[in-house]
């Protein structure tokens, strides 16, 4: 794949787990590949593609964050089909996944997703982008504020910036540190898919932060952990009953 900017579908919103260095736009080199079989270097019992598929299936069936998002998307007219809307591929750099708006597909980087918990978080993050794409006219390609908003929401609501995850990254902070993390990770995500300066990305995040950080849809609250996500899912299922009475 050559360096043309549209090879990786410029409208993609990248996932989390980004290194500090600027990642070029060549993140998903296999997006247009012709069905190359995916083999792990140490295949052990499963190839990396098989592991990705199995972990994805488990996430879709059991994770409360994802189950709520799938329900919300179905409710908005975007029912998700695992085989159509997800793709496990090898990716460049340290990106864990992305949402390709031009094909309405979530890319999972099978070579970078380490374990089931990581898969849960990546799928949640990308489904938030997909949900935004479904419910709103998000201009992924040319409106930096729209991209920034979706990245703020994804970092905020997916668990990317939980206290435990931040400690593992050696980012220590307590009082309101979550917001600092959301700003930083949203900025990094933008830099992974846009060839712009860090300052421009940061300014875009700052402009939309107040609005997008407080947009908790479809959760209705910040899901700090699976318990909150379950409560949020219960509330979502009761919504129709409630709003019909207002």
């Amino acid at each position, binding site marked *: 794949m050559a360096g043309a900017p549209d090879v990786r579908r410029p409208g993609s919103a990248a996932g989390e787990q980004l290194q500090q260095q600027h990642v070029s736009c060549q993140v998903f080199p296999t997006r247009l590949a012709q069905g190359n079989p995916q083999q792990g270097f140490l295949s052990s019992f499963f190839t990396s593609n098989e592991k990705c598929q199995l972990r994805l299936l488990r996430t879709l069936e059991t994770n409360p964050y994802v189950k709520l998002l799938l329900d919300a998307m179905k409710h908005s007219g975007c029912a998700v089909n695992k085989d159509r809307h997800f793709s496990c591929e090898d990716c460049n750099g340290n990106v864990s996944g992305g949402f390709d708006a031009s094909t309405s597909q979530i890319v999972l980087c099978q070579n970078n997703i380490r374990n089931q918990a990581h898969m849960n978080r990546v799928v949640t993050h990308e489904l938030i982008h997909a949900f935004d794409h479904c419910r709103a006219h998000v201009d992924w390609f040319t409106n930096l504020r*729209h991209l920034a908003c979706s990245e703020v929401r994804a970092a905020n609501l997916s668990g990317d910036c939980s206290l435990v995850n931040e400690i593992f990254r050696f980012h220590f902070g307590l009082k309101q540190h979550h917001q600092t993390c959301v700003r930083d990770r949203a900025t990094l995500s933008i830099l992974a898919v846009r060839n712009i300066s860090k300052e421009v990305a940061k300014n875009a995040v700052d402009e939309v932060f107040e609005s997008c950080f407080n947009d908790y849809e479809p959760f209705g609250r910040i899901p700090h952990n699976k318990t909150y996500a379950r409560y949020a899912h219960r509330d979502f299922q009761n919504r129709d009953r409630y709003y019909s*009475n*207002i």
Partner: protein
Amino acid sequence: MADCSPWQPRRPCEAYRAEWKLCRSARHFLHHYYFHGERPACEQWRRDLASFRDWEERQSAEAQRSLCESEQARVQAARKHILVWALRQSPPADWHLPLPQEDE
């Protein structure tokens, strides 16, 4: 404020109890402080739980009104932010279309 009559509670009684219990937990205090930099406010959940019980036992109109207004306030608070984008009236037309290579 929308009319609260006729009205049906948004959540079952055990949901109010569970929310209040969760709100008062040490873990929630930690989460809330980490996220917002301040202590959580749980008093409204306690009032709502008391109102629900009152409404359930005595069919109290006052309790019903209080509960309804509290839930409406939560809905309003969730919608307070200004949206960055315009909402769709229908989902994207290409969401369910086959992938380009499948089409060839």
